[in-house]
């Protein structure tokens, strides 16, 4: 073992490098992933294979590396929520298509919103989340079925968000939300309805999952 656990820190650095590239969906092939990670190739290929095998990394239909289901499950578990698993992808896509906005799952503790998985809106009216995915709500979260808030990240201006609580535990709220770009008044109610519907479905599936785990 290296001095002061350097070997382990190095291994963690490598894992983080690979996860960060996968998080940005910026590698289409193992070669691109390995090259972008800066890790010696043979180590990187071996580590990529191991992480795919343990489902920390996965690939989408075009072959891009993305975070794997195990990674997402770990995160939900760290927040104390059951993992919505396969349902999250279709739900985020549904919310994104129906609202034409960037849709996300967020974890809200006090007034800090930490974004989880998200699906970026299409066309011109969409917002990229801030770099760390962490926002401070400028007004207190009231926990109502759907509420509009202004959220500010450390590195960007305030953005309007619409948030729907899904479930709550003693640590945080699990929420479903969209970044709201300017949209015609007629569409605003529709966006709220869509989000409420999606949150209701996510709630149902999270509760199912909770019951299943309890059994």
């Amino acid at each position, binding site marked *: *073992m290296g001095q002061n*656990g350097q070997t*382990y*820190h190095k291994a*963690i650095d490598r894992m983080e490098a690979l996860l960060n590239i996968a*998080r*940005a*969906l910026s590698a289409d092939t193992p070669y691109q992933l390995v090259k972008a990670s800066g890790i010696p190739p043979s180590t990187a290929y071996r580590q990529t294979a191991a992480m*795919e*095998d343990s489902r920390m990394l996965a690939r*989408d*239909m*075009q*072959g891009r590396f*993305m*975070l794997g289901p195990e*990674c*997402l499950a*770990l*995160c*939900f*578990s*760290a*927040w104390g929520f059951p993992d919505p*698993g*396969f*349902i*999250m*992808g*279709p*739900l*985020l*896509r*549904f919310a994104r*298509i*129906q609202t*034409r906005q960037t849709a996300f*799952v967020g974890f809200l503790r006090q007034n800090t919103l*930490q*974004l*989880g*998985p*998200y*699906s*970026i*809106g*299409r*066309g*011109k009216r*969409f917002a*990229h989340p801030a770099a*760390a*995915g*962490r926002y401070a709500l400028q007004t207190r979260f009231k926990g109502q079925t759907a509420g509009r808030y202004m959220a500010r990240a450390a590195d960007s201006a305030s953005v309007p968000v619409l948030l729907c609580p899904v479930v709550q535990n003693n640590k945080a709220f699990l929420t479903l939300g969209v970044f709201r770009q300017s949209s015609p008044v007629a569409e605003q109610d*529709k966006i709220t309805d869509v989000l409420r519907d999606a949150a209701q*479905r996510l709630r*149902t*599936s999270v509760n*199912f999952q909770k019951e*299943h785990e309890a059994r």
Partner: protein
Amino acid sequence: MGRSTGFALLKALGERGYVTKQGDGCYRLGETVRNMAFSSTEAAPQQVSFGLGSKQAGQALADMELSAELFELADPTPARSLGPWRLGFANASSSNPWRKALLNSAEHAVRVLDRQICGFQSRDAGDDPLTQASQIDAFVQENVDAILLSATPDPDNVLAGSLMRCQEQGIPVIAVDRRPNDRSGYAVFVTASDELIGKFSAIWLAETLQGQGRVWLQPGLDQASPARRRLTAAKMVFARFPGLNIEGERFSGWTEDGGFQATQDLMLQHGQAPDGVWCDSGLQGVGSIRAFQALSERIPPHTGGDINGMFRTALKLKVPFCAFDYPAAMGARAVEVAVEVLKGATLPRRVEVPVPAILPRGTETRSIKADILAEHYVRWDLPDDTVLSQGLSLRGRPAR
């Protein structure tokens, strides 16, 4: 893991915020893990300019139906040994490029998951339910661990007995693309939304035509339920546009020749080219475009993707089109789902594979935006009958 290694690893993980120590000597997942899920679930959109119909307010709402099965959990199946497992694939047929691509995709996933899958055998039923029933029985006798099933059309419910035997033996059945009539005959259904394909392609065409004009409909195969579902969904959208006149409708059999013939017949009947042609797939769409070309007519906007030939032809001739490819990559997803089921994981009854919107530059409408640009999606180096939606199996092994 040795004690000293374990403690050193735990210490390093703690220093990086992956775990935090509790007062009682226990550890729990830390802040770094809580922030780990911040990631895009789909590729970021390509910045494309608004094109046809962008000024049209558009009356069609992109109402996407979510199947209730997406939120219904499959009955938990007890894990079947530790693996590796043997899978059988009862395939309805491999009679067209899409079906061959589905098989390629499944075989690719088997190669990727070779540590978990030690055997994979596929049997082609030639669209005959009796043959498929006997093939399923053979898989049961060979005691495979799970069966992937793309069901043949089965009006007499011939498959029910075989599927019952699977249940009795505790062999999970994963339906892919086409499910059996009896919902209790399978554990999970891996598919894509036909309603979405029909509805969104119709919205694109209606918005492209700014809600006015004459439209021809060319659905796929008359008896096939996906073709019916897409057609019904498309008609519901067209009905919202009173200025659109559905002038003709011809089933095309999902073949290039069928599309060519359907367009020729409709031209004979109506005497002039329409303003738009709705096809539920490029399998016939490419035939329709070639028919207009053969008749030296102006080629109207078309819908339908799926095969490389449609993309190559439409881009070369600068025909406005949109494609919602029915993903052959669902073959790979079905293999992954089978492995999950065998591990004893909880899964929804229905697993949907995403259907991307593929449009050429400048053809986005108010409601329909490109997930992928057709110019980036097309493969000029591959033959016309290549199915592009088969995902990773396309690399190095075209579906031929």
